[in-house]
């Protein structure tokens, strides 16, 4: 019981210290800093450049798509690494395991490619009335031929 009491005290200290540190810093700053208001200071900081427009703009969704694609392949590489280290011992089963894993990601990647998510200048083909992509990318052509 003593053990857990100590832990409860520890938890309390953790919580209180966490709150105190974040608010304390703000409070101390508020108390001791000199106050020289200037419109430049109130403006959004853009690396020293004069700010253009407000900070609350809608970011282009394409940034997120790129970030997501990067994240997936980053994680994939991270998972490939330990696999490569033990590959010799694990034998052929490990190869199949990894092929299944890799295959799933490749299907996702091909999907992005096929529907134009990798093109920076996005065609409006997604919004036509047949609701299929008309634009002929290499993959789409190949797929249609193959069908």
């Amino acid at each position, binding site marked *: *019981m003593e*053990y*857990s*009491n100590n*832990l*409860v005290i520890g*938890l309390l200290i953790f919580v209180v210290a966490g709150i105190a540190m974040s608010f304390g810093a703000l409070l101390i700053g508020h108390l001791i800093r000199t106050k020289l208001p200037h419109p430049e200071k109130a403006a959004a900081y853009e690396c020293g450049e004069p700010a253009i427009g407000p900070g609350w703009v809608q970011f282009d969704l394409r940034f997120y798509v790129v970030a997501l694609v990067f994240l997936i392949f980053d994680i994939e590489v991270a998972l490939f690494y330990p696999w490569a*280290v*033990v590959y010799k*011992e*694990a*034998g052929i*089963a*490990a190869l199949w*395991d990894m092929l299944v894993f890799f*295959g*799933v990601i490749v*299907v*996702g990647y*091909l*999907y992005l490619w*096929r*529907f134009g998510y990798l093109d920076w200048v996005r065609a409006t083909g*997604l*919004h036509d*009335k047949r*609701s*299929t*992509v008309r634009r002929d990318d290499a*993959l*789409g052509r190949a*797929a249609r031929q*193959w*069908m």
Partner: protein
Amino acid sequence: MTHALLAATPLWMPSAADLQRLGPLWSLAGTIVAVLFAALLVGRNYRVAGAIATLGGVFTATLCWRGITGGAVPFAGLAPEAAAPMLVVDQFSCFFIFLISVFLVLVTGMWFMGLDAGVPDEAARRRDAVEFFVLFVGSAFGMALMVSTSNLLMIILAVESASLPSYGLAGFRKKHRPAAEASLKYILFGAVTSAISVYGASLLYGQFHTLDLMKISTAIGSQGISVLTGVGLFAFLIGVAFKVSAVPFHFWCPDVFEGASIEITTWLSVASKAAGLGLMLRIMWLLSCTVQSADAMRWVAHAVAIMAAITCTVGNFSAFRQTNLKRLLAFSSIAHAGYMLMAVSIIWQPRESAAGMPHPASSAVIAYMIVYLLMNLAAFGVVAMVYWSTGRETMDAFNGLGWRNPLLGVVMATCLFSLVGLPPLGGFITKYYLLIALYDASLIWLIFVAVFNTLLSLYYYARIAYAMYFVQSDEAPVRAPAMGQFAVLMCAAAIVLSGTFYAGKLKSFSDQRSRDMYGAMQPTGLRVAERPTADSMH
């Protein structure tokens, strides 16, 4: 150095037979990939995407059904150590995955019907069908994982992989403001609860040096529940309570149900809760699997009982003033989650006799879940058809429905009275089983809470029935797709049958599922026979 370590421990690989046992999970995961792959070949074809999702659901359900009827070889595995399984396959998980995949197929059918109903975002629905079905089957996969694991880390992963696609689905109507709001609320709420849940898991791991629930349970049995264990357990269970939408983690539920399109509302109201309750049952059962740990878990179970009582009371009271049918049914589903949580709170109690007897609590939840699926599917189906016809989901759209479309009126009335729990409907008989289980567990106060809540709920369910039959309306008759009418009629028939002729069969089926529920314990350290009996407790 690395090589020395590797040489010391032989590398573990799952065998082909082990992988084969996880068929239902493979099947769902394969369906997701197949939907994407088909899109590569044939383009954005909503029929193909929907057909693959349906096929995947049917195939998964078949595999699960074979597992259920074939007396699924209880199996715990996919881990180097047999005593600490990552994934569990047993009758219980097979049943829940069966339920989820059958529901997946039914909701897909509902989606198809909604296509021709002339809702405003029709073109977008067709266009984005591929993404829709990937997310849809993805959330089903996460829910299937939730009911087939007994490892803290896997539970967190499963809850996340069920939640993340659900966030997307809730906000799938991009141009629809309430949907975006619902999705944002859902994400924020889910993020906070899962953060707390991970924190709880880390506290448990720090204390017991294992992520396996069985091992944690034996450790609790020998050490007793310290304050830290209690904090860890509660924090961990918050993540699951969020999925079940137990009060006070229910705030996302009404907004999401109102904002999301009706198929998604239907899906979340049943599948998300089924998975959450299955997981909750498994956690509570595994944590109390020895005599000592069952004794220690008593306090956690009492806390769950209190949460269950609050959940259904708050759910029922909040439903009173709702005029949007989807929102009303959201609160109703919170209340029903409360009833089922009541059963979860008695699962720690020992069974009357040794192994082979089903636990009344899990049996009651399984029976309740089956009827709850039918009731919600039919009720939401009627709401959907009224919406397709009138463009409204509010109470006034239901005025005079009993005369504007007699079939839908009768079906809706059946569902409503079954949701209340009136005989001779399925809702009554399952609530009766639940109360009997509570009585056996001598939780008399909880029975009073349940009965009181049933009375409360009668008011707002009856209000809809009143509007359907006693409020005059000169609106046009409600025209609904024939397939949809047939489907909800079948549901209503099943509700009536399960309350009358098939009540015994429902009971024996759910007993059977919960009897072999934790057969998966056998390869682990503790045999089912070691489960404490009533005699050994006193």
